[in-house]
């Protein structure tokens, strides 16, 4: 009963915090709301007309939605890079960062689920997929695995920070006995969501571009670069706009993680390129299409040739300690790395899997305005959720938000 009362007061206080703020804050939230409304409007068109309003066709049957889904799974998994040292190795440095990281994971996962639903042809019969009520093709279909791991990870990432914040809110210490096992579990779980999502593609013998053993590991490497890169950027923003103290040491450690992951990612990229282009086979055509275009069709060239130099540049910049330790350069490289990996995991991974088609037919894919509108709407939704979560968490951590018994 008491817990319930505390919870109610937390929700109330949290609501107060997120509805009050500076003018910039209100502008930001208003902007996000507007983008979400635009997204909803686009989605309503898609619902009534069908998926034909997107750029997808029978030849390229997954596009922007699934690309973003894939990328965001990576961002969500990256929270683990912060969880592990904090909870398990008792590295205090990361303690403040980790709540932010987990908030980011929650937002990313909700975006993932939103993208999957946006991609479905029949969202009204989605209950067919609920285990126990519908028919869940487990364990045969990797998609059912993905549903399980993503929702499980979402659950973990909501409960752990919630427990910690709930304790702090009452002015008590969080008991490490309670949350450390959960944290350790979520470490493995994060690797799991990533591998399972990679297996979704990797397991299709029909698509040689995906059907390669490096896909899973490369997913991990790029995720552990892009995710923490985003966390660094977010922490930098939080540091600027709130009193929440984040030490330089924390940022430097996360930067180290990004650097190593980006380096590994680059090595794997080279290995992939070598395999595709040193002894090209029939199966290298998708890679040819991606990097050089095939038979005059080259819609992806501008994308990939932006992504690769950005990726290399960011990795090189991050590799030198001097440069990495300069905050401006650090933020810049994190930003371009994030963009580069978004392109690479989106346009560079999902779309070329379908091109050329099973019989060599090259049909190109360009997202339509409506598709882009829905996509932006979902990103705005993610940012919105994250802002709310982060503000509440920061309020509690700074001690501004406390449960008052006499209320």
């Amino acid at each position: 009963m008491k817990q319930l009362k505390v919870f109610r007061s937390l929700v109330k206080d949290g609501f107060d915090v997120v509805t009050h703020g500076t003018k910039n804050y209100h502008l930001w939230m208003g902007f996000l709301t507007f983008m979400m409304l635009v997204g909803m409007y686009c989605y309503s068109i898609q619902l009534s007309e069908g998926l034909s309003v997107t750029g997808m066709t029978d030849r390229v049957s997954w596009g922007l939605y699934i690309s973003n889904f894939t990328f965001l799974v990576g961002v969500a998994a990256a929270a683990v890079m912060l969880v592990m040292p904090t909870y398990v190795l008792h590295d205090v440095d990361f303690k403040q960062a980790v709540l932010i990281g987990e908030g980011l994971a929650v937002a990313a996962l909700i975006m993932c689920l939103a993208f999957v639903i946006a991609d479905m042809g029949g969202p009204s019969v989605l209950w067919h997929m609920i285990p126990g009520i519908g028919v869940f093709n487990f364990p045969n279909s990797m998609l059912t695995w993905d549903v399980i791991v993503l929702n499980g990870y979402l659950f973990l990432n909501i409960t752990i920070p919630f427990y910690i914040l709930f304790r702090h809110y009452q002015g008590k210490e969080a008991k490490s006995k309670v949350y450390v096992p959960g944290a350790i579990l979520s470490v493995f779980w994060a690797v799991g969501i990533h591998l399972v999502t990679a297996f979704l593609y990797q397991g299709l013998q029909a698509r040689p571009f995906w059907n390669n053993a490096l896909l899973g590991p490369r997913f991990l490497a790029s995720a552990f670069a892009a995710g923490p890169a985003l966390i660094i950027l977010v922490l930098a923003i939080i540091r600027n706009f709130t009193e929440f103290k984040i030490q330089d040491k924390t940022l430097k450690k996360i930067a180290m993680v990004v650097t190593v992951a980006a380096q590994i990612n680059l090595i794997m990229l080279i290995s992939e390129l070598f395999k595709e282009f040193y002894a090209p086979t029939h199966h290298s055509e998708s890679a040819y299409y991606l990097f050089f275009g095939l038979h005059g069709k080259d819609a992806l060239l501008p994308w990939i040739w932006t992504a690769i130099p950005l990726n290399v540049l960011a990795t090189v910049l991050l590799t030198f300690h001097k440069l990495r330790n300069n905050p401006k350069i650090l933020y810049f490289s994190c930003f371009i790395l994030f963009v580069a990996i978004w392109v690479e995991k989106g346009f560079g991974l999902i779309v070329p899997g379908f091109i050329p088609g099973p019989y060599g037919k090259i049909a190109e894919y360009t997202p339509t305005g409506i598709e882009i509108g829905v996509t932006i709407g979902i990103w705005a939704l993610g940012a919105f959720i994250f802002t709310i979560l982060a503000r509440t968490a920061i309020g509690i951590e700074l001690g501004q938000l406390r449960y008052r018994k006499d209320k």
Partner: protein
Amino acid sequence: MSRSNKKWFSLNLGRKQHDNSGSCGCGKTSGGCGSHSNDSEMSEEEFYNAAVDASIGDEREKDGFDQVFDVKMDRRTAFRKLTASLLIGAGAVNTSCNVLSSDESKEKAQIDWEEQFKGNYKLMTDDEKKGTVDRLVRSYQMRTGKTVSMSSKNAEEDVLFGYAFNISKCQGYMDCVSACVKENNQDRNSQMQYIRIHEMKDGEGLKFDEADDNYYHEVPAEGHFYLGTQCFHCDNPPCVEVCPVQATWREDDGLVVVDYDWCVGCRYCMAACPYDGRRFNWSKPEVPEEEVNHNQHYLGNRMRKKGVMEKCTFCVQRSRAGKNPACVEACPTGARIFGNLLDPNSTIRWVLENKKVFRLKEDLGTEPKFWYFMD
């Protein structure tokens, strides 16, 4: 039919062997797919029925879903009730309860309701299959005033359908394509076609990537040969494995089918098919009323809705009625051969035994039941 007595070359890549001795295509022998009778469990079942009748009375009905998981509670009914109570406020059930509305609209609402919450066709009993077919026929009648005949005929025993395509005979007339579109009520707006005819250059072998599968000129074009593709009804279909809700499966007679009402439209199967065999309804399919083929099968050419997957079914409405698929019948050159692989006297068996046949992408282990040969 079991794998060991196959009459054709089988590439065994160590895939799991389906033990189909129970004449069931779902690969389960424990009564999982609903086509087995559970004699041995009767006593337990009876007890269960009595217990449930005592508690929920006759509202309870057993469906295929229960058989799958052998659950001791009818979860879908529970779900239906839950959703019903949620929707009452929204007025969705209003029509069916409203004394003022006509009987017809009440019936319509009732049908829509039951259709929305029906189970997966694969797991239905024969009675349930008939039930949904009747509802669909009635609802079509109420909407358009026309009557369709819709079958829910199951696979027959000792039948396994196969197909052979004679490359030397095909001249690229595409009569098969138009016959298929008509027979199967395919969307005219998006010009959906199950069959693709690839025009290839003589003397260069099977070069699919240089072939033209969308030609608009007089055929046969000089110096070219033609080859048709469609869903190959793989015996080891990757599309079936990946479907998260089992909305697509292999029937006992080898047909790979889709339950259009159960499909959630994720298009995973499309990504998994190595043969470009599947088509998606990107928008609401349109067929002019006077062109609708009224001879339908639940798993075949009945009207589809938007956002679901469909594909060639070897014209299940025809083949299970003992006829050839529309493409075979329409082909003016006799390049297409269809029949029962288990019947030693069938033409298809003669072709497989006397011609040098091959299949596409055999290295993938999908075991298509679609062979190519030359004279």
